[in-house]
C-alpha cells in the first residue's frame, strides 16, 4: 500500500485488518516529511519520537476501532499540543510548550490519530500566504516559487504533498479554505460554534474556527465529525445534534438548489478560475441540482468589515503577549511599561503590528462608532444577505479564491492586495456559516482551483454532500 496517497480511511482500515502497522504508517510519513520539508517548510516542529511511541502503543491496543486509528495528522501551530512547542508562527511565544491539549487535538488522539508535528502559518494566522511567518514561508508542492496560500499554508502543504492524509487548520477569514483551494485539496470551515476553540491561539474570537483538511471529502468530513461537539471548556461551542457530515456525502445533489452570486464574479476573476468554476456548476446541474442567481448586496463591504472587526478583536486578544506569563521577554527594559512595549516590538512581525495598530485605532475613543460599531452593523447586513440567499436554497457557490496560487513576494509589498485575496472567503466567516473548498476539475498543466460552497447554519452536512458530488465527477473524468 502506498501510504503517501492512501486516504485516512484506507489507512485506518488497513491497520484494522492487520495489513499494515500504525508504526509503519508513521515511519513512512516521517520519512516523507524528513525528505520534503527542507524544501516546502510545511512544519515548524516535527516530533518523530512522540509520533513513533504513540503509533507503537496503538499497535499494541486490542481495540482498533478508533475512527482515525493510526492515521498521521499535522496540526497547525496555532493549536496547543501538550508539551510540544507551539509558536503560532511568531517569535513572541519563544519556546512555549503548552501544559494542555486543545480539545480538537485531544479528540483526534482519542480517535487514534498520531500527531506528527506542528505546521507553519502566518504569524497568529494573520495572512493569506504564510509569508508572514517568523519561520519563513511554506512553499507550494507543485512549484516552490509559489505560495500555498494561508494562513494555514503548512497544513495544506502537508496534505497536498502527501506527508499526512489529514491536517487541522484554523479559519478566521479563509485561512483553511483558501490554502486548500490553492493546493488542490479539501478544506472546511465549520459553522461558528460547532467546533471547540479551547487551546486555539485566539486571533479574532467572533470569527475563529478550527477546520479540517483532507485529500478527500470523506476524510475531511470524518475529521470534522471527530472534532465537533460541545465542550465544557468553550462556552461558545454548542451541543451538536446536527447530522454527522459523513452521513450525507453519498446522497448526491439531485433536487438541491444552489445560488450563484453572479454579480460578484463579473470581473476580477482569473480565466482558469472562471473556466473551472463554470465547469463545476455544469457538473452540478447535470447531476440534478438547480442552479440560479442570488444577490449578496453588501458583499462589496465584506473585506473592509472583516479587517475592522478582526483587527479590533486581535488588538484585544494579543494584549496577553506582554512578556510576563510565557514566551519571549525583552530582559533589558527598566520598567514594566518599557518591558511590554519592547517585548512586543521585538516579538511581533510587521503584519501583526500593522493589524494591532489598525484594531487599536478602530476601537479608540472618537473612532469606535465610525469604524468598529459601524462594521458590526454592516456585518449584520452581510449575515442577513446570506440568510435571504439561503431561503429555499441549500448553498451558495463561489470560487474560493479569485486567482490560483500566486508567487512568493508578489503581494507582500501591498497589504491591501493581500487582503483582497480573501474577497470570497470573508463573507461566510462574518456570517458564521459552514463553508467548504473542494477542488474543481482543471485543464491539464494548470494550477488547482477551489469551489467554495456555503450552507445554512448547522447544515454543514449539505456542503460536504455537494462537495462530494463534485469530487466524484472530477475523479471519474
Amino acid at each position, binding site marked *: 500500500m502506498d501510504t503517501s496517497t492512501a486516504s485516512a480511511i484506507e489507512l485506518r482500515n488497513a491497520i484494522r485488518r492487520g495489513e499494515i502497522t500504525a508504526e509503519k504508517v508513521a515511519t513512512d510519513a516521517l520519512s516523507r516529511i524528513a525528505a520534503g520539508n527542507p524544501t516546502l517548510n510545511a512544519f515548524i516542529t516535527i516530533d518523530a519520537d512522540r509520533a513513533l511511541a504513540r503509533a507503537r502503543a496503538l499497535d499494541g491496543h486490542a481495540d482498533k476501532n478508533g475512527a482515525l486509528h493510526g492515521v498521521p495528522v499535522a496540526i497547525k501551530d496555532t493549536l496547543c499540543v501538550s508539551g510540544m512547542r507551539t509558536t503560532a508562527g511568531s517569535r513572541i511565544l519563544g519556546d512555549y510548550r503548552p501544559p494542555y491539549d486543545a480539545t480538537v487535538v485531544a479528540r483526534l488522539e482519542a480517535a487514534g490519530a498520531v500527531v506528527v508535528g506542528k505546521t507553519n502559518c502566518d504569524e497568529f494566522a494573520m495572512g493569506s500566504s504564510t509569508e508572514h511567518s517568523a519561520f519563513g514561508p511554506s512553499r507550494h508542492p507543485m512549484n516552490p516559487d509559489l505560495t500555498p496560500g494561508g494562513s494555514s499554508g503548512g497544513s495544506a502543504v502537508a496534505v497536498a504533498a502527501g506527508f499526512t492524509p489529514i491536517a487541522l487548520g484554523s479559519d478566521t477569514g479563509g485561512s483553511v479554505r483558501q490554502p486548500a483551494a490553492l493546493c488542490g485539496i479539501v478544506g472546511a470551515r465549520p459553522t461558528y460554534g460547532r467546533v471547540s476553540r479551547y487551546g486555539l491561539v485566539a486571533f479574532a474570537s467572533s470569527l475563529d474556527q478550527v477546520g479540517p483538511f483532507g485529500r478527500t471529502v470523506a476524510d475531511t468530513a470524518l475529521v470534522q465529525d471527530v472534532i465537533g461537539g460541545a465542550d465544557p471548556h468553550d462556552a461558545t461551542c454548542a451541543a451538536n445534534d446536527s447530522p454527522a457530515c459523513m452521513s450525507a456525502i453519498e446522497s448526491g445533489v439531485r433536487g438541491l438548489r444552489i445560488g450563484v452570486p453572479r454579480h460578484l464574479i463579473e470581473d476580477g476573476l482569473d480565466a482558469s478560475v472562471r473556466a473551472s468554476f463554470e465547469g463545476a456548476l455544469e457538473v452540478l446541474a447535470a447531476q440534478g441540482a438547480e442552479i440560479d442567481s442570488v444577490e449578496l448586496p453588501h458583499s462589496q463591504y465584506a473585506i473592509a468589515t472583516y479587517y475592522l472587526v478582526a483587527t479590533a478583536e486581535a488588538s484585544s486578544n494579543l494584549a496577553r503577549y506582554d*512578556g510576563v*506569563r510565557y514566551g519571549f521577554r525583552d530582559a533589558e527594559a527598566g520598567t514594566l*511599561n518599557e518591558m511590554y512595549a519592547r517585548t512586543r516590538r521585538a516579538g511581533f512581525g510587521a503584519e501583526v503590528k500593522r493589524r494591532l495598530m489598525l484594531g487599536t*485605532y478602530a476601537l479608540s475613543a472618537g473612532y469606535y462608532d465610525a469604524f468598529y460599531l459601524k462594521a458590526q452593523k454592516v456585518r449584520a447586513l452581510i449575515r442577513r444577505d446570506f440568510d435571504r440567499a439561503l431561503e429555499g436554497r441549500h448553498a451558495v457557490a463561489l470560487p474560493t479564491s479569485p486567482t490560483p496560487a500566486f508567487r512568493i513576494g508578489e503581494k507582500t509589498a501591498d497589504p491591501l492586495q493581500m487582503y483582497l485575496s480573501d474577497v470570497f472567503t470573508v463573507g461566510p466567516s462574518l456570517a458564521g*456559516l459552514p463553508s467548504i473548498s473542494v477542488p474543481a476539475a482543471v485543464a491539464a498543466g494548470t494550477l488547482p482551483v477551489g469551489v467554495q460552497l456555503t450552507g445554512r447554519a448547522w447544515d454543514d452536512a449539505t456542503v460536504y454532500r455537494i462537495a462530494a458530488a463534485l469530487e466524484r465527477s472530477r475523479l471519474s473524468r
Partner: protein
Amino acid sequence: MASQLTRDDVAGIAELARLELSADEQDALTRQLGDILAYAATVQQADTTGVEPMRGDLGGAALPPWRTDTPTPSLRRDDVLSEAPDAAQAAGLFRVPKVL
C-alpha cells in the same frame, strides 16, 4: 479622517497598543494605515439605519449551552510558572520589572 492620519497619530496609537516603533516603522505605518483606513472607511457608505450591530451570538446562530457549575482541577501552578520568562517558582509568582 483616515487620509489625514499623521505620524503623531501613529505614535499615539502605538502607545495605546503598547508597541515601541522605530522611526522607519512609524513612517511605513503612517502610509500603510492611511491607505488601509481609507479602504476600511468604505463601510461608512452602507446604509445601516435601524440595524442592530452583530453580537457574539452571531444573530442567534450559536446558543451557549447551560452546564452545572462543577469545580474541576485547573492547570498545575508549577506547570504554568515553568513557562514564564521570569518566575519566582517557590513563591508561586510571576516576576516583572519595577512599575515606575
